[in-house]
């Protein structure tokens, strides 16, 4: 390529790159909308954030209104004691509060008013949650109170009453917090022009609920003798609920008391062991008020009635009965397509009222082979089975042993295992491999071509020896050929007669005219050209005579040529070439020229 043309192309490329850079620098594309997830948690796609922040605060005002209005129905339901509806409304409130929170986080972190609403509605939700739980607990206590009063169980009546007092203590102060949160929301909501009636109304309801809890109406509680015999310790127990199904949570609670003189002491931090059917199930520590409370889900326990009691280090509670109701189960089985080895993946699940965990599943194929596997925490199981060729029927069965769950069995699943299982080639994968190999090969060829191009410089191969110095009149030259040395006139004439050995003849002439040094040099140059042509040596001029001689291998004239070079070096560089050197040189010249085929070479 022309050098100027190269520079022009390079200049154009450089200018165009600089122009592009100049266009890009004022607003660099740091993040693209296509790539909004980053491996680093400290990266956020600002482009996406900016796009999201285009939603102005007015766009989310309706959502804020929904959240603020959500408190009204919840408080009203708690007040009128519709606790189920209250729970549903509270869940709804929580959901809309969560979505508002997400929206605010994505919208803009600097909107302090919206943050204030989000924070205060969270406080309101927390308080409503507490109120709902307290109402539920008080309801349960009230029911238990009635039950124990009927049974005339003074210990348990005391326990229930103390628990009620404890709950009331916990409610203390909720009212004030709710008032503050509501005041903040009203202030912010008014700024946005929102209707705050429902939220303010919820404040009045909360006031009333808290008041009712803290100062209960005249209790119908019948005074009972709760005194203990001095020196006797008591531990109480009650269950809530006392019936349950698989994975229902049963709450076991009670109080541990001791009488010391005229004072009833709460047993603080003592271990209470819960027994079910005389088997220790759990150990619980009492709190600072002597209460203990634990929740245990129904798991691997048989259906029917179970005796439950607790023990402190010094006393034992009365027996309680826990009734476990059995539930039906469903077992499902799915078989995958067999692979080349006949392996089939058997997957499925066992479901009762909830997924059955860690259950043993029997996989039976052809009613003769049994494989046992277990379900995981999600009630699902998976087992690989290798089946011989032919048709097979597989059934999964859950026995229900040890669980309050009825046994179940899947529908029979049929699978055909082919006899001849040839390899099924994955053509897509094959094509991908071929493509990748093709790409790699392409670049290998490109690299090889590049290296080869490096070696193929545009250097002309040596042309035929140029005898520009040769006299125009060849015959006169041959006649004029010098007489000194072995190649005198007679040899020159002989050469002419024998077919015109020009190299030797010209050597003779040069010898006469310019001396041995110049003649040997000329001969070497002529022979070097011939050898360079034979061996495709491009830079033969850059090589020394010895290097040319070393490169000459495998040709008959290489031996004489080596001798010629040896004599040539002595003639050229020894300073005082001898007659012997000249003789050796001329003999070697003759042999080399002969073996090369003279001018025909």
């Amino acid at each position, binding site marked *: 390529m022309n050098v100027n043309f190269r520079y022009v192309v390079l200049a154009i490329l450089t200018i165009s790159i600089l122009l592009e850079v100049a266009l890009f620098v004022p607003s660099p594309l740091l993040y693209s909308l296509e790539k909004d997830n980053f491996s680093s948690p400290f990266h956020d796609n600002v482009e996406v954030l900016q796009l999201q922040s285009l939603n102005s605060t007015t766009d989310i005002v309706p959502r804020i209104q929904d959240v603020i209005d959500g408190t009204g129905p919840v408080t009203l339901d708690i007040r009128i004691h519709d606790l189920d509806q209250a729970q549903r409304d509270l869940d709804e409130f929580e959901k809309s509060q969560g979505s508002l929170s997400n929206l605010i986080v994505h919208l803009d972190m600097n909107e302090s008013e919206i943050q204030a609403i989000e924070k205060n509605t969270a406080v309101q939700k927390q308080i409503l949650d507490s109120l709902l739980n307290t109402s539920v607990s008080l309801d349960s206590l009230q029911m238990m109170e009635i039950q124990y009063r009927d049974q005339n169980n003074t210990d348990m009546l005391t326990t229930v009453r103390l628990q009620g007092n404890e709950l009331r203590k916990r409610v203390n102060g909720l009212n004030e917090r709710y008032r503050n949160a509501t005041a903040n929301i009203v202030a912010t909501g008014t700024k946005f022009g929102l209707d705050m009636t429902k939220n303010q109304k919820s404040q009045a309801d909360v006031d009333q609920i808290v008041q009712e809890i803290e100062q209960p109406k005249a209790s119908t509680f019948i005074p009972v003798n709760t005194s203990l015999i001095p020196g006797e310790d008591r531990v109480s127990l009650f269950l809530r609920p006392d019936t349950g199904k698989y994975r229902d949570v049963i709450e076991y609670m009670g109080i541990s008391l001791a009488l010391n003189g005229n004072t009833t002491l709460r047993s603080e931090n003592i271990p209470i062991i819960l027994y079910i059917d005389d088997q220790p199930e759990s150990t619980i520590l009492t709190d600072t008020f002597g209460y203990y409370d634990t929740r245990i889900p129904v798991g691997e326990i048989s259906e029917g009635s179970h005796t439950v009691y607790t023990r402190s280090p010094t006393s034992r509670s009365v027996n309680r009965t826990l009734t476990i109701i059995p539930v039906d189960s469903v077992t499902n089985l799915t078989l995958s397509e067999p692979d080349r080895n006949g392996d089939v993946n058997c997957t499925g699940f066992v479901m009762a009222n909830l997924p059955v965990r860690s259950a043993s599943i029997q996989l039976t194929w052809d009613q003769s082979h049994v494989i046992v596997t277990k379900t995981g925490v999600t009630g699902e199981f998976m087992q690989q089975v290798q089946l011989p060729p032919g048709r097979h029927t597989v059934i999964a069965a859950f026995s229900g042993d040890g669980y309050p769950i009825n046994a179940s069995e899947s529908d029979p699943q049929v699978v055909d295992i082919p006899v001849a299982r040839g390899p099924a080639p994955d053509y897509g994968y094959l094509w*991908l491999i071929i493509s990748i190999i093709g790409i790699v090969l392409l*670049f290998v060829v490109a690299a090889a071509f590049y290296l080869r191009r490096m070696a193929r410089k545009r250097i002309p191969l040596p042309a035929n020896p140029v005898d520009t110095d040769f006299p125009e009149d060849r015959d006169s030259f041959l006649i004029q050929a010098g007489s000194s040395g072995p190649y005198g006139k007679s040899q020159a004439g002989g050469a002419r007669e024998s077919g015109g050995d020009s190299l030797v003849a010209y050597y003779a002439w040069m010898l006469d005219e310019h001396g041995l040094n110049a003649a040997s040099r000329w001969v070497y140059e002529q022979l070097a050209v011939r050898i360079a042509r034979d061996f495709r040596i491009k830079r033969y001029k850059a090589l020394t005579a010895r290097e040319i001689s070393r490169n000459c291998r495998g040709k008959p004239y290489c031996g004489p040529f080596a001798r010629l070079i040896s004599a040539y070096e002595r003639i050229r560089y020894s300073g005082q070439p001898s007659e012997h050197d000249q003789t050796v040189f001329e003999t070697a010249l003759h042999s080399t020229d002969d073996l090369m085929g003279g001018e025909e070479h």
Partner: protein
Amino acid sequence: MKKKILAVVVIAVWLMIISIFMLLAYRFDLEIFFVLWLIGLLVIVELMDTRFSLPPYMRYIKYTVAAGILLFGGIVAGKVMEIVYK
């Protein structure tokens, strides 16, 4: 200045320019860096190449370029696989 020293200076400046722009863009991609380095090296080799002789340093640079082409092939193959697996 000798050709090979000039080549080293030019490639260093080129790499610095690439690095600065990558830093400005807060996005340092090693593959793009490599490809831009290879392009720079190819341009330099083409401009400083001699017509008839091949000095040893030019031979070594050309071997490096050939290795770079192979690596570039590897990057292309990797990208193809990425796209296919998406």
